[in-house]
């Protein structure tokens, strides 16, 4: 049952071939057996899930079938879930029980999904390897000596290992697409504003966006339809109408012109280049036209990102002061001591580093040189994408410069770690939608194909991804797991 897609499980449940309680128990048992090798979950919500599943089964028996009734889901532990622990991968929120639901959680609950657990992640979503989590490293299901990517490493690894059919993630600089690439699953980051950020613990508010992990583009489309839309609780969410992405992506594929940024191929690893070029050939034979384009400032994306994201994080994380919620230090002398000790004990090394860089960039005398300059570079990058989309429907490239790296390999080199996101950050800076899907392997480790679209062109991205998955079978490959 764990090899079925969301689309297949939906039919099984609606036709009463399996109950939601049976399905929930199946996945809970599977997580209990296998996840000790992967550490992809911070918490299992078994009791809560069984209660939800029983409610859904009762509804199905009475003929009330919600759109995603009874399908198990894992929520990244960055989304506030009412009455359940929401840690954000940090000691700071180790014992935090959220008093409310994030809008994404509320919407998927309303659609009938059953939350089985909360997935592991880099602390406050700051990382590209899942090694900054207070709750330990997540292991890549394809080889447990390797990282799964990050920050949504637990969400990606759990889907790759078939511990859950789908999960949520967040993407500030590549945190959905890079782990999707490194674990061989699909991950979509929608347009900024497509999905509400309410109740999603903020890292960099002008870049953060919620999205989905699944094994197929069709499943991504199904879930994306349900989490998208305007939310009065998030003033940056868009009022643009939400299409039925599932219907759109399954329509007959029409020819597209696809741009290949020459800068993405400069100095690229040989195997990644070969695999990527093979996927271009496959698509060329199946109705796509390709065109070389230039995104010459995209290489500055990481530099601009390293100002914008830390600056916004230093502001957002100032709310963790040890007073109202989160970790509070003992034996403090005065209020300043309370703030400093609580924050120093509650935050890990990478989070502190980013807060310090952000504080520096925003401090008196440096704002123009750093934050303002970064906002201008952002505009330059955004303009280059806008120019490119006058000539092409979509842009294609590798999601990451290489396959997964070994645990510990880059943990003492922040710059090497930040460069893992070199192909993903620019789309966050420009607010564009993008998706990663499996395109092959380097040795035994998966590689991801990134599709970037113009603002609100998620349907086009999903259509190409679905088309690619009809003519290739990379998305059906599965890792061999201990305990499986």
């Amino acid at each position, binding site marked *: 049952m764990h090899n079925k897609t969301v689309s297949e499980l939906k039919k099984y449940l609606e036709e009463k071939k399996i109950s939601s309680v049976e399905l929930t128990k199946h996945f809970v048992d599977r997580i209990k057996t296998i996840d000790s090798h992967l550490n992809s979950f911070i918490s299992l919500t078994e009791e809560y899930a069984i209660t939800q599943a029983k409610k859904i089964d009762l509804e199905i028996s009475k003929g009330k079938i919600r759109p995603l009734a009874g399908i198990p889901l894992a929520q990244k532990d960055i989304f506030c879930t009412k009455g359940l622990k929401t840690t954000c991968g940090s000691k700071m929120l180790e*014992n*935090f*029980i959220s*008093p409310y639901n994030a809008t994404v959680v509320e919407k998927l609950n309303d659609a009938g999904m059953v939350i089985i657990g909360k997935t592991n992640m880099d602390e406050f979503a700051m990382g590209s390897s899942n090694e900054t989590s207070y709750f330990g490293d997540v292991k890549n299901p394809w080889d447990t000596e390797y990282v799964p990517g990050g920050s949504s490493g637990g969400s990606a690894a759990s889907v790759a290992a078939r511990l859950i059919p789908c999960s949520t993630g967040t993407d500030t600089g590549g945190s959905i697409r890079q782990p999707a690439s490194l674990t061989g699953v699909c991950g979509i980051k929608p347009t*900024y*504003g497509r999905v509400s950020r309410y109740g999603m613990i903020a890292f960099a508010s*002008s870049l953060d966006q919620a999205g989905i992990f699944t094994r197929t583009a069709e499943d991504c489309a199904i879930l994306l339809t349900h989490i998208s839309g305007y939310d*009065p609780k998030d*003033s*940056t969410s*868009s009022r643009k109408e939400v299409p039925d992405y599932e219907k759109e992506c399954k329509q007959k594929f029409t020819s597209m012109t696809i741009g290949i940024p020459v800068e993405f191929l400069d100095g690229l690893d040989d195997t990644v280049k070969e695999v990527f070029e093979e996927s271009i050939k496959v698509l060329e034979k199946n109705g796509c036209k390709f065109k070389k384009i230039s995104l010459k*400032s995209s290489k*500055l994306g990481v*530099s601009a990102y*390293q*100002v914008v994201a830390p600056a916004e994080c*230093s502001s957002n994380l*100032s709310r963790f*002061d040890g*007073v*109202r*919620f989160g970790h*509070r230090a003992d034996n*403090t*002398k*005065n*209020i*300043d001591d*309370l*703030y*400093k*000790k609580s*924050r*120093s004990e509650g935050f890990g090394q990478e989070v*502190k*580093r980013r*807060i*310090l*860089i952000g*504080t*520096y960039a925003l*401090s008196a005398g440096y704002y123009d040189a*750093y934050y*303002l*300059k*970064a*906002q*201008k*570079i*952002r*505009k*330059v990058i*955004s303009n280059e994408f806008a120019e490119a989309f006058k000539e092409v429907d979509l842009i294609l490239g590798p999601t990451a410069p290489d396959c997964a790296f070994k645990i510990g390999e880059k943990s003492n080199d*922040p*710059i090497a770690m*930040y460069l893992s996101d070199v192909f993903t950050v620019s789309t966050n*800076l*420009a*607010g564009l939608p993008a998706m990663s899907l499996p395109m092959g392997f380097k040795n035994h480790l998966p590689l991801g194909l990134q599709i970037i679209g113009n*603002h609100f062109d998620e349907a086009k991205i999903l259509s190409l991804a679905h088309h690619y998955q009809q003519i290739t079978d990379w998305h059906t490959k599965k890792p061999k797991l201990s305990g499986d």
Partner: protein
Amino acid sequence: MNKETIIKISDLAKIDIKDDQIDDILTSLEKILNLVDEMNSVNTDNVTPMSHPLNLKQELRKDIVGASDERELFQKNNKHIDNGYYIVPKIID
């Protein structure tokens, strides 16, 4: 950037840094700033800074009463509470 800057920004950010950590932090922040300085390779004198990916303006909502006071619910996450107030170390002598 130097040691004094690290001490100043850590105080602004309310993060304690031990003396033996300053050198490591200084080295890693300098590396990041070198990466950031690559932005200066592009002349942006005539570029308008981008503050919102879709160039949208913040909406104003109507001034109507929304969610009711949920202080008790929110304070369940804190054991340092007295009569609805948060207890903190003495601020004024």
